[in-house]
C-alpha cells in the first residue's frame, strides 16, 4: 500500500517540475541541487506548490537539504507527513 502511495506521490510530484517549474522532469534519484535543477529561486516555488498540491504544511525544522535532494526523498517526506502519527 505504502509503495503505491509513494509511487503516486512521486508521479504527482514529477508533474510539478514540468507544470510549475517548467523544467524537464528529473529522474527519481537525480540530485536536484548538484544538477542545478533547483536553486534558491525556484526551490521556494517548488515548496509552495508542494504545500498547495498535497495540502500540507512544510515546517522550517523539516527543511533539511538531505530531505529534498531528489524526487524520491521528497516523495517519502510527503507520504510521511501526510500519514497520521507516522512522521
Amino acid at each position, binding site marked *: 500500500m505504502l509503495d503505491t502511495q509513494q509511487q503516486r506521490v512521486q*508521479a504527482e510530484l514529477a508533474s510539478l517540475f514540468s507544470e510549475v517549474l517548467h523544467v524537464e522532469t528529473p529522474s527519481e534519484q537525480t540530485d536536484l541541487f548538484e544538477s542545478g535543477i533547483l536553486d534558491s*529561486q525556484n*526551490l521556494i*516555488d517548488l515548496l509552495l506548490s508542494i504545500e498547495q498540491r498535497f495540502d500540507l504544511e512544510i515546517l522550517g525544522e523539516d527543511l533539511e537539504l538531505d530531505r529534498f535532494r531528489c524526487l524520491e526523498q521528497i516523495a517519502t517526506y510527503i507520504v510521511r507527513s501526510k500519514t*497520521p502519527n507516522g512522521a
Partner: protein
Amino acid sequence: MKLLQDYVRHQAESRPEVTAVVCGDQRLTYGELEASSNRLARLLQASGCERGDRVCFAIPKSSTALIALLGIMKADCWHVPLDSSSPPVRGMKIIQSSQPRLVLGTGATAVLLEEMIGSGVQSGRVQVGWLDNSRKTDEHLNSAFSWNDLQHCSPETLNHRNSDGDPAHILFTSGSTGEPKGVVITHANVIHFIEWSVKYFGIQSSDRISCHSPLHFDLSYFDIFGAFAAGAQLHLVPPEVTLLPNQIANFIRSSELTQWFSVPSVLSYMAKFEAVKFGDFPTLKRLLWCGDVLSTPTLIYLMKRLPQAKFTNLYGPTETTIASSFYTLAACPTDDKEAVPIGKGCEGEELLVLDEALQPVPRGETGDLYIQGVGLSPGYWRDTQKTSAAFLRYGPKDSRIYRTGDLARFGEDGLVYFVGRTDSQIKCRGYRIELGEIEAALHSLGGVCESAVVAIENADFEGKLICCAYATPDGNKNLSIELRRRLSNLLPTHMLPSRWKGFDKLPTNPNGKIDRAKLKELFLAEERKIVPSPLISPDVDECGSSPVPPTDKSKPDCVKVNAELDSGIVSARNMFKRRTGAVGGRASGR
C-alpha cells in the same frame, strides 16, 4: 580625503590581530587583509593596471574576494563585479562594455570565464589574474599572474593616486533595451552612506555583521565597509545556506550575529516556514532590509519573536548608492494592513515627490519620487543619453536630482510612502528587473512569432511573478519548457519567467497592440485556479475541523492522492502563517 580602502588600513594599523572576515572555517584578520590586498594591488600595477582602469571580478564569495575588492581599489582601479550565476553571454556583455584591463578569477569560475570571453568578439586576448593556483592560458585567455605570485610583492601600504571622486565600481543592472546598464559609483558616494550608517546604527568593533547579498549587489558594500569602518567582524553567508530558511536561521544563531541585512524575501522565507522561534537570535541587535517591500505580516511575525532587535527599512536604488532613506519601527504594527513608510532621507539625502513639471505635489498626493544628495551616481557608464534622462536639474539651486521611476507620497507624518512604479521595472526577490530585457531576450530566440512578459502579484509569497505569454507560427502551445531552457542561456535565473502560457494569438487592444492588461488578468485567473487546495475550502475554520469533500475537478489524480493520504484528517493550520506571504498590492516601503 578618505577612500574606501582606508577603513581597513586604519584597523590594520591599530588592531592587526582582530578578525575582520569569517567565511566558513576561514578567518582573516585586519592585518592579513591589509597585507594581502597591498600585495595584490602591486601585482595589478605590475600587470599594467593604472588609475581609472576597470578590473572585472568573477570570484565566489570568500575572504579572497574581499582581498580582491580592496586590491583593485588600492591599485586606483574600478571594480566591476560579474555575477557568476548569470549565463556567460551576459557576463561577456559586461566585459565588452566595461573594457577591463584585467579580469580576476579562480579555478571555480575558470570555465565560466572561458565561456564568457569565448562567447564574444574580442580584440586580442583577455588578461586574467588567478586568485588561486589555477594558472590557465588558452586561445582567449592570457594568464597574467596567479596566487603564488603574491608572495613576491611587498605588503607595505601603497600611495594612492586617485581621489574620492573617482569611481569605486560600476554595477551593471537590468536594462530595458536588453543590454545591462552600468551605474558608476564613486568612493565618496559609498563613504557618505557608510559614515552615516555607522553613526546612526551605532555599529561597534564588537559587532558581528552578516554579509548576505552577493558581491555584485550594492547592499553588500554596506555590510563590508560598514563592518570595516567600525572594525567589526564580517560574516559571509555562503550561498548554499540561503537555500533553506532553517539554514539561514541556524547561521544567524551559530554565528551569534548582531546585525542582519538582506532583501525582504529572505525574511519572508523564514517567516513562511516558521524558522524563527520566540526569543530567537539573542545576540541580534539590528534587522535591516532593503530592495523591496517587506510585507507587514512578516514584519509582525519577526518583531514579536525578536523583541530585542531594532527593525529598519532602508530604501534606495543603485543609482543613489546602497540606500537613500530609512525608517526605524518605533513599535510592532498592530494591524497587518498597516503600511511601513520608506521614511526620510539619510544624512545628506533628500526625497522629493514631484509632478510632471517638477513641482512638489501636495502632501498626501502621489507623485514621482526623486532623490537629491550625496549618494547620486555621476551617471551611467558611457551612456550620456540615459544619464541625462534620469539625472535632472531642479530648483533654484539647480541641484542634481535622480528620477527613481517610483511613485510615492508624503504621509501626514511627514514620511514618504512607496506607492508603485511608473514603468515596467519590477522587483522580484530584491532583484531589479526590466521586463523589456526579458522580452528582448525572448525575441532573439526565434521560433516564437509573438511574446510578451507581464508581472502579477504573487498571491502566496512576496513580490511579483514574472509571466510569459507566447505564440508560435505552428500554434504549438507546449513550448514552455524548451523556451525556458533556451532563455536560461541568455538571462540569470532570477529573470526567468515563472509562469508560461502558449496562445494561438496574443490578445490585442483596439490599437492592435498586445493587450498586457488582458494578459495580466488571464495569468491572475490561472493563479486563482491553482490556489484552492483540493481538500480545504477557504472557509474552513482555524482548527480545520470541517474538512470538505474535494471539489476541484481539474486535478483528479491529485485529489485522489490527497484523499488517500489524508485519511480524513486535516492538519490544524496556523491561519497567521497562511496570510504571512500575502502582499496583495500593499505598498509599505521598498
